[in-house]
């Protein structure tokens, strides 16, 4: 809802951001339950991961996650730029973030495919939760990337209206949370090796 005729500098958080924040509450509890499921199955397993599946390799996933977290910097910059009415800067910042996030997703998909060759989700509950957890997380990254694209397009075509200023801040909030979730996801994924 674009805010016209602001009475005075806004004291409270705009509706759009509240909406996204609450949506993210639901997403966070979804990931909480996924991670909970992972350890629940771990607790009742005779060996974890099951015999014949070697514990995940640590380096690449951690590096990838670090890269994803790095993109929170340009995202933060974009949201500041939007509040300061600097449209060009905002677009550029989002674009930079977008590129890095794209690379992250590409790498993660390669790792995912590689793991699929190692062990399958159909053979053991470990495989099932491992791949489901990662797939859900990657889906959220993909959604974020689509949001990036949408925002860039909207800012380019519609300009930096009140509505899209809020939009950029909403995008930023989304990425902060996805970044935070990424940390917990990767730690869970690598738990057997840590």
């Amino acid at each position, binding site marked *: *809802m*674009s*805010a*016209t*005729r*602001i*009475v005075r500098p*806004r*004291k*409270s*958080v*705009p*509706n759009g951001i*509240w*909406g996204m924040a*609450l*949506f993210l*509450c*639901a*997403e966070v*509890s*979804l990931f909480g*339950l*996924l991670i909970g*499921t992972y350890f*629940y*199955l771990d607790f*009742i*397993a*005779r060996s974890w991961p*099951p015999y014949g599946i070697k514990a995940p390799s640590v380096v690449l996933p951690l590096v990838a996650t670090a890269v994803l977290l790095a993109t929170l910097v340009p995202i933060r910059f974009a949201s500041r730029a939007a509040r300061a009415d600097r449209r060009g800067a905002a677009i550029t910042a989002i674009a930079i973030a977008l590129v890095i996030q794209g690379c992250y997703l590409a790498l993660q998909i390669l790792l995912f495919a590689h793991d699929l060759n190692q062990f399958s*989700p*159909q*053979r*053991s*509950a*470990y*495989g*099932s*939760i491992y791949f*489901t957890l990662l797939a859900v997380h990657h889906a959220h990254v993909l959604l974020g990337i*689509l949001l990036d694209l*949408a925002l860039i397009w*909207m800012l380019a075509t*519609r300009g930096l*209206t009140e*509505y899209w200023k809020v939009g950029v801040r909403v995008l930023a909030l989304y990425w902060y949370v996805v970044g935070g979730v990424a940390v917990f996801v990767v730690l869970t994924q690598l738990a057997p090796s840590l």
Partner: protein
Amino acid sequence: MATVVTPRGQEHVDRLERIWAPRPGLLGWLTTTDHKRIGILYFFTSLAFFGAGGVEALLIRTQLIGPNGHLLSPQAYDEVFTMHGITMIFLFVIPMTTGAFGNYLLPLMIGARDMAFPRMNALSYWVFLCSGIFMYAGLATGHAPNAGWFDYVPLASKTYDPGLNIDFYGFGLIFNGIASTAAAINFIVTIFKMRAPGMSLNRMPLFCYAFLAAAGALLFALPSLSLAALFLELDRQLGFQFFSSSRGGDALLWQNLFWIFGHPEVYIIILPAFGIATSIIPTFTHRRMVMYPLVALAEVMVAFLGFGVWAHHMFTVGLATITTVYFAGASLIIVIPSAIQIFSWIATILTGTPEFKTPLLFIVGFILYFILGGLSGITLAAIPFDQQVHDSYYVVAHFHFVIFGAAVYPILGGMYYWFPKLTGRMYNEWWGKASFWLTFIGTFVTFFPMHIVGIDGMPRRNYTYPADMGWTFLNMLESIGAYILTAGLVMIVVNLFVSYFRGPRAGNDPWEGDTLEWTTTSPPPPYNFPVIPTVTSPYALWDDKDREHDNRRLERGEGLLDAGHQTPASTVQDAELDEILSMPSYSAWPPITALTLSGLFAMLLLGHYFIAAGFVVLGLLALLAWHRNEADA
């Protein structure tokens, strides 16, 4: 007291009428974002599903009217009792309370002109409608879910249920969850941000606290159900191993995930009922609620503690006692918030001057049945006793007194209470009272004997029972009660239907109500309030000088917000006026998005994953087009 419009005020009103003039015809309803129209759509849709669920209930009761009944085959019986549960919970009570009552009344009660996200509000409705049709498509094609609404694995796994039945359940619930999540977010933001200036947290009608709590619980509980359904479908469709004990999975994982959702769900169902009760009681007792702050906190506290009791549905699965004890503790203490509310209602009725009109009668019935269901609930928190009667008809009796006696009665009372506001006409009091007594007696006769047969050892979900068990008479009684109950419900619908055409004019404020919806005309105009109301207490309408002040403002044309579809937004805690929002008026995209989702889930059900992906793309494009139009489209 209601708004008085002077000639000068009338000019301002006419101007608003022009700005907010609704789009005519069917298209107007399809593309509407007006919370009142959406509420009405929700009302009639969920009422239709209530009818369907009721028919299913009657089939069950008729099958069980005598021993060795054969009205339904075992297969048909399983589908019917499963659909009864799913319908009543997901397609009737939740959409009726949050969807219909919440949508229609919340913005009116907090003095807003619409929900925070009107288009998302429309989306929730259309998605809910499509998900309901989706699940009933299963019944129509003879593949209705048949493993109970709780759908325990492995009975629900591909091995023991190869058909599409369970897939209609799994995908249907994920689909339905989207609607509820969107609605929950919308309600919370509306209550946080859209309150009339001055309506700080301590001046919020208790109705809003109830809906805030319900929406919050819904928001955090639903992911658990969606995740469980996702696991289930991955197991069924792609052969994953979440629930197969031979491959390191666990059948109890489903039960945990399901009840992490399933118990908060119970409170999600009942909380709006509390809200309706707490807005009917002050009106008809002519006094404020006793202990306003405790009632407010009780409503929120129930929703919060509700997340810590789920395993009391699992006391018989053999968990370690050091685990169950925590659930038992929470299950007992969660009684306190309910007790606070019950005695606050009773104390209010006792110390006020109650007029026992139909709405209040339904609330009194609600209080009695809620106490009854609550007490049997306490006995179920006593683990050894629960382990004895768990999965017996005792439990059926318990949760029907809670869900029907306690959650549905306020809905019925609320229908009578707000009927004049929605239609501008008054229902027939005599038939109203008659319908109450019929419903009240029917409920008791239907559900009370179930305690006895349950303790006597009759398990739930049996399509029949032997003749020599001594259960025959009580079951016959229950079935007769079900018919009486049906008669009562039909009488309510007929009364309201006839009154809609024949009823006398009701005026704006027939009850001298305490909340803001009664200030405005009946039915309310598209902009709800000509001037944004002044609020200085939780019983805004009883503060006469505020209302007079508003009348003067209307005459002077203050606070009209007449530059387009405008509504104020205020700060979360103290509701200081913060900004003026322009709201969208019409959008065709919500129904279109809902259609793409329907396509998506239909294709997932049939296993055409590439076509499904196509629908995802379409859906994203629809969302993009949606946001091309910022506000007033």
